[in-house]
């Protein structure tokens, strides 16, 4: 998964994404965890693009919770009391989920189309936003974020 040539900053993002997945009790690391990891490092252009759209780390977490709640509601399930879900976390490290692989692949496409050099984290953000696989597109739609506009902002940043 992790390219040997991958820069340290991007490696740090991937490492934080694993922690984000664990914290959210996910058995796999998914694109939304990458998004959370990008939003954490305020020094990144990607984090600034997200923050300008209102997507701080806390806001992304809230949007993810909202997406889950609405998805459960679609199956007729109301909110479940957190006390019923209290458990010691699983000890295994979450594996890479398909949406991460898709996001990384999609992040390479703008380079092919416009040849512009961008920081790897910005490429990754563009990939996360462009990928249709996984929860991120739905989370953004429910949060009222214009995904196309956000992709364009990331490309221009």
């Amino acid at each position, binding site marked *: 998964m992790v390219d040997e040539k991958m820069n340290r900053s991007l490696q740090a993002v991937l490492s934080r994404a694993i922690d984000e997945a664990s914290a959210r*009790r*996910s*058995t796999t690391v998914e694109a939304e965890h990458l998004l959370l990891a990008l939003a954490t490092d305020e020094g990144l252009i990607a984090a600034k693009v997200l923050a300008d759209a209102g997507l701080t780390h806390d806001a992304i977490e809230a949007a993810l919770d909202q*997406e*889950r709640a*609405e*998805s*459960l509601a*679609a*199956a007729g*399930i109301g909110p*479940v009391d957190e006390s*019923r*879900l*209290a*458990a*010691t*976390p*699983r*000890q*295994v490290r979450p594996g890479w989920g398909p949406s991460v692989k898709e996001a990384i692949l*999609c992040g390479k*496409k703008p380079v092919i*189309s416009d040849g512009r050099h961008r920081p790897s984290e910005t490429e990754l953000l563009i990939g996360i936003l*462009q990928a*249709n696989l996984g*929860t991120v*597109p*739905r989370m*953004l*739609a*429910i949060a009222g974020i214009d*995904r*196309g506009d956000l*992709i364009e902002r990331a490309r221009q940043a």
Partner: protein
Amino acid sequence: MAQKMIPPTGGPADELAAVVALRELADRLEDAAVEKAMRQGWSWSQVAEGLGVTRQAVHKKHLHRLIAAGVELRRRNG
């Protein structure tokens, strides 16, 4: 943008997302219920019977975290 956008909300998207959310909820409920049962002295076999899976499956999935949680585990007949 070049990629075809599928509607992420409404209709089938809601129904498919519900499946994802239910799987995640089921996993969390399982973790909580297994831990609660084991803290109350249930054996691995009893928990496995309750979940309708093999004892080995429950053991493999939950042993490490229950040890980390300091749960007193029944060794025999379990």
